[in-house]
């Protein structure tokens, strides 16, 4: 597929405070590059991410949303990431119904020690969203920046 290099997607990343946010910090400490398109929002746990937030991001013009949590079994709150996993699975079927590409939403497990993985995940996600092109389906045109 033709990749438009000028297209700079807006990507929202929700990172849980205990694992993924620390992993993101670690990739910074290790100076591992990933594109500036990714903007991180800190949440206490990946299970704090209401699927509404994801839809809101798409509505406001985000081209991709990624949710990062602790590895299964490692959740700081014991079981939060299991809830996230189920909720995102349900969200996927709704996105399918709406005709939004599944690949625009991704759930990843990144631990506090995996700075390199965090950077790799972000690089691959940005590439993938660039391939998909801008999000048009769910974008609220009234929200589009002029």
């Amino acid at each position, binding site marked *: 597929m033709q990749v438009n290099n000028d297209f700079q997607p*807006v990507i*929202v990343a929700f990172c849980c405070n*205990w*694992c993924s*946010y*620390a992993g*993101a*910090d670690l*990739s*910074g*400490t290790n*100076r*591992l*590059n*990933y594109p*500036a398109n990714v*903007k*991180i*929002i*800190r*949440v*206490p*746990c990946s*299970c*704090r*991410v*209401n*699927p*509404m*937030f994801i839809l*809101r*991001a798409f509505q*406001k*013009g*985000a081209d991709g949303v990624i949710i990062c949590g*602790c590895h299964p*079994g*490692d*959740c*700081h*709150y*014991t*079981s*939060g990431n299991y*809830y996230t996993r189920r*909720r995102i699975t349900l969200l996927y079927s709704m996105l399918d119904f709406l005709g939004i590409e599944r690949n625009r939403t991704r759930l990843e497990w990144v*631990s*506090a*020690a*995996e700075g390199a993985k965090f*950077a790799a995940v972000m690089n691959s996600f940005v590439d993938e969203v660039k391939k998909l092109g801008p999000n048009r389906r769910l974008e609220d045109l009234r*929200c589009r*920046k002029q």
Partner: protein
Amino acid sequence: MQRIGVFVCHCGTNIAATVDVKAVAEALSHEPGVVISQDYQYMCSESGQDLVKNAIKEHKLTGVVVCSCSPRMHENTFRKAAASVGLNPYLVEIANIREQCSWIHKDIASATDKAVILGKAAVAKVHLNAPLTAGESPVVKRALVIGGGIAGIQTALDIAEAGFDVDIVEKEPTIGGKMAQIDKTFPTLDCAACILTPKMVEAAQNEHITIHSFSEVSDVKGFVGNFTVTIKKKARYVDETKCTGCGLCTEKCPMKKVPNEFNMGLDNRTAVYIPFAQAVPKVATIDPNYCMMLKNGKCGICSKVCSVGAIDYKQTDRFIEQKYGAIVVATGFNPIKPDKYNEFAYSICPDVVTSLELERLMNAAGPNGGTLLRPSDKTHPHTIVFVQCVGSRCDDEKGKPYCSKICCMYTAKHAMLIREKYPDTEVYVFYIDVRTPGKNFDEFYRRAVEQYGVHYIKGMVGKVMPRSDGKIDVQASDLLSNEQLHINADMVVLATAIEPDKTARPLATMLTTQMDTNDFFTEAHPKLRPVESATAGIILSGACQGPKDIPETVAQASAAAAKAIGLLVKNSITCNPCVAHSDELMCNGCSSCEKVCPYGAITYQDKEFRMPDRTTAVRRVASVNPAVCQGCGACTVACPSGAMDLNGFSNSQIMAEVDAICK
């Protein structure tokens, strides 16, 4: 109307080199509600904090955004600064423009753009921040130490010294751990048992210390200051309170062919056993896998010879529940089994041993009574080859990626001890690097080479071939002379990598602490908080956090004790105010939140409400116990009516951040 102050930090050149901080401050000054926007060299410094404090006072700020390093670093610094001038600390937000912006982007324009957006998101969030007050919860004045090796013993002794009660939970029948198995310690060559066993006895006799040997932690509930732990006391089929440790049962037990774990399986023990002479507690344990009485009900000799009637074949696992204020993890390490490295022939040749096995072979209480003999034919070895870095410093598929740290030193110790006791034995050590950072360590290694004539060869062993005449052909490279060597050895000793104990992973899940990819516990900060885990109240001690030698382990154990004592002396601790709360008017009483809460913090109550038509109605509504809630937010998403919200990370705050980023 909100009055928000924005403070952009240069962090020297850490941020300023890739982010145009002046432009960020300028751009954010136009955001709604922002009344002051400044940049400064080091915002976290005393004068930087003064800048923030003065601005709060001068401009009567109702919210502060600091664009600086990660909130994990300095959020507390700025919150304290705000609190000191009367602004609620939870009205401070951090935009992370160092770890998540300047350090990862090279292009100044895009990094600056991103910093502005992150700043805008923080401003949008702080608009909706509400002042929060932290509650307090009491601290249970008792500590739990998981693991009874030298790390656990030292931590327990130090905590007990301060006058607090400590429980040690040890999964083996005796405390002592790996150090009890070691013969001599580097670099002083004093005997490990001579310095360890007095500490074990001290721990046993200390009135503040309770030792739960042959026990495991089976469940952990609660939070810092108030953990509830279930300890499983495994059935040892001997009444601990009656057994005097006389050892008569172990002499008379007819089942004498049980591999002796303490001697690394190099000799046998009986089915009822005391691991070693100085065991603490000195109480016998029956191994149910081998005891004939327990397996098929025939025998019972031990119960006949026991003069105090301590043998109890009907004993079962017991569970005890105890409350603790702090938990210290000291689960330690194990050497890996080198059997997957076929080239070293460990699984086919008994004369290829690991270093810990060699410790037992050389120990006076070991299988040969302290004389070094080959395990296969009990003859004296004349040529011994040591192989370093077996399973350490490997690619991920081949072994452990880290350096196990202690092997260089203990190999030098073994080589030295062998050369001293048996000067006719030639000792070869194949090394990749000799790593001896530590007090008197390099001197020690040099002594092995210069004074004891140990042959250190830069290179690696590629193949170990046992021959039919009992000798072992060792094929290796000598990189400095650029030769391939064949050494006719009698014994090969593998310096195997060390790995965290297998029980550590399920324990980390129970404690909700993080581990790295190698299953070592992750510390809260690699440099500045190396003995605490990121989970409050869980403290790390010894090799469970990373490879360590004995002095380092003891140092960390005492540091862990200091952290535990620091927690236990407090009567109460401040709770995290970022907890869930329910809007009772919106709650429809569906119980969804109650079901997802991992802490059981949500209960339902019947409450009376005034209805619009001046009548009262009783409705069932959720209420959150703020002392139990940990603030994960699972309930906020589960709530179908949107009644649940989380302080500090409310729905509207996160939506505002999303909007600011996408705009």
